[in-house]
């Protein structure tokens, strides 16, 4: 498989408001380092999972990939062409090929537009099909996501959560993308409805040859769905490997703790020993060295001063002792 989308050295910082107290103390405004030097390849036709806890930067990464955020540093290349320096026409073509499905199917659809209008707007604005064919294409899109064709005349509020997520997927597909970035696409849905939407992603991927980036905190789902998985902690990727092997033998102590913390579906011996102590440090003031060292059972003096570089231990891992 070749890399379709290449991310290299991506960094993104958000600057907060400088408070009065900051000014008095002559402190600069607080800066959140949401992404720090993130590099990864997304291969054609694969499903890549990005996992990590809230605040680890996974959604920021997704938003940088579809250009909802401009990264501060680093490059994103699609088919080898860097996004930086593109003129607006080329950039539009880029964004057409990389589309996003959002977590909240309630908040991401315009409540005043019918489903047909929402889809037709995409097709018309981006001139995907000639105006005369728009109606037919809307029908096709609805077929693709298994919604009845009469859905086109209805408004988002008339649909359930699962159906709304189908509409969001149809809207992304309207652009005929190569890559779909799905940010927690099922976590707002009822448990009994999630499997329907997961299956739709699997089906669309094999029918349309889509490349999928699946961002979620649901590790059971990632294990089932993805080929490779990237584990993020405080803005950095700490481990990136083939899903099955990584779940069987995680190398990074954070990945190990994360996987241990997931409640398994098989009732087993109960322990009252927590998988990992402590909490995610503030991204305003990340620890020195390895960001995980204050919580890490293996940490040694070196970990608090020297940040581990990514190195190959079967697959890339950022740990001195993996």
């Amino acid at each position, binding site marked *: 498989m070749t890399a379709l989308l290449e991310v290299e050295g991506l960094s993104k910082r958000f600057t907060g408001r400088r408070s009065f107290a900051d000014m008095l103390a002559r402190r600069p405004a607080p800066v959140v380092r949401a992404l720090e030097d993130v590099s990864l390849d997304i291969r054609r036709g694969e*499903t890549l999972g990005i996992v990590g*806890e*809230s605040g680890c930067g996974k959604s920021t990464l997704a938003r940088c990939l579809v250009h909802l955020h401009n990264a501060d540093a680093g490059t994103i290349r699609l088919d080898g062409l860097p996004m930086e320096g593109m003129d607006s026409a080329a950039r539009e073509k880029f964004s057409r090929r990389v589309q996003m499905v959002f977590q909240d199917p309630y908040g991401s659809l315009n409540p005043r537009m019918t489903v047909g209008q929402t889809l037709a707007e995409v097709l018309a604005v981006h001139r995907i099909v000639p105006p005369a064919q728009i109606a037919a294409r809307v029908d096709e899109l609805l077929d693709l996501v298994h919604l009845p064709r009469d859905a086109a005349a209805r408004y988002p509020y008339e649909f*359930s959560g*699962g159906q709304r997520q189908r509409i969001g997927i149809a809207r992304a597909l309207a652009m005929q993308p190569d890559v779909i970035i799905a940010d927690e696409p099922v976590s707002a849905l*009822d*448990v*009994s*409805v*999630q*499997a*329907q939407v*997961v*299956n739709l992603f*699997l*089906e669309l991927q094999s029918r349309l040859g889509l490349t999928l980036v699946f961002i979620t*905190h*649901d*590790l*059971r*789902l990632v*294990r*089932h*769905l993805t*080929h490779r998985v990237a584990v993020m902690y405080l803005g950095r990727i700490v481990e990136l490997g083939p*899903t*099955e092997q990584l779940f069987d033998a995680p190398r990074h102590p954070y990945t190990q*703790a*994360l996987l*241990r*913390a*997931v*409640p*398994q*579906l*098989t*009732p*087993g011996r*109960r*322990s*009252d*020993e*927590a*998988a*990992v*102590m402590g*909490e*995610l440090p503030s991204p305003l003031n990340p620890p020195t060295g390895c960001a995980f060292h204050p919580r890490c059972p293996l940490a040694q003096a070196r970990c608090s001063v020297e940040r581990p570089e990514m190195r190959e231990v079967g697959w890339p891992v950022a740990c001195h002792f993996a």
Partner: protein
Amino acid sequence: MSGPLLDVRGLTVTFNARHGLVHAVDGLSFAVGAGEVLGIVGESGSGKSVSLRAVMRLLGANAQVSGQALWQGEDIFAMSPERLRALRGGQVAMVFQEPMSALNPVLPIGQQIDEVLVAHTAMDPAARRKRAEELLGLVGIAAARTRLAQFPHEFSGGMRQRAMIAISIAASPKLLLADEPTTALDVTIQDQILKLLLRLVGDLGMGLVLVTHDLGVVAQTCDRVAVMYAGRLCEAGGVADVFAHPHHAYTHALLGSMPGTGAARQPLTPIPGQPPKVDAFVAGCAFAPRCAFAEARCSTERPPLLGSPHAAACFATARLAV
């Protein structure tokens, strides 16, 4: 021990809504004893949270509650206001999903613990202070002395939930009702909080009712489970038994739809359709329209809850096993 701590029989809750009656809970029965962990699992709208609130008489005037809730044999619904005040927070305490809205934002944590101790114990101020510090230590909050003077907004999400738990166990309750206590938390913090609750059950001999929508949490935490769907109890029994041999078609389908049950990257076995609307009247089994095992009588006749200790309200029990 003689008999359960809490024995709920035929609990029914209906709300007067603008568009008619909403049957939130319909004939729910469960019991929980000392040192026991009961999981109540169901999707949003299945009535699990409403049940807990109804038992504690926390619902508003638009709710009509019938049935029985016996606290060590004494009818909670017939208790005098004074007796009820002594029970709530004293012998039975509750932990809510969103600690930020359950905690008082303008009072320091120490004072919120103190309120419980004043109301339910005869301790003098010095003893209460000591007990408050002890409680924070018990729930794993370091630097108790400083923390007691801090306000909820100075705590992280996980720490707030720990503080909530410290407040709820302040008066050494015999039973803790926890309503999705970890749903808003990251998986490593969820793991810490669940392990903390288990340790408290073990050390203090408390009973625990854990409401959740996560089957993994049930599998790893509970002794017994009650499965709810559309306000009704579908199935109840020992966790190992229910997970290995579900007797209700809904439990069977829900467990079967989880990722990780089949081969990786293969379609999941979804449950078709959506959960029913709460204001719809259902004559037969509420799950019948989505059920692969449904027969003619399922949509007209309500299946009775049969079996003990593993009970289920399903006509298809025998056919599920094959």
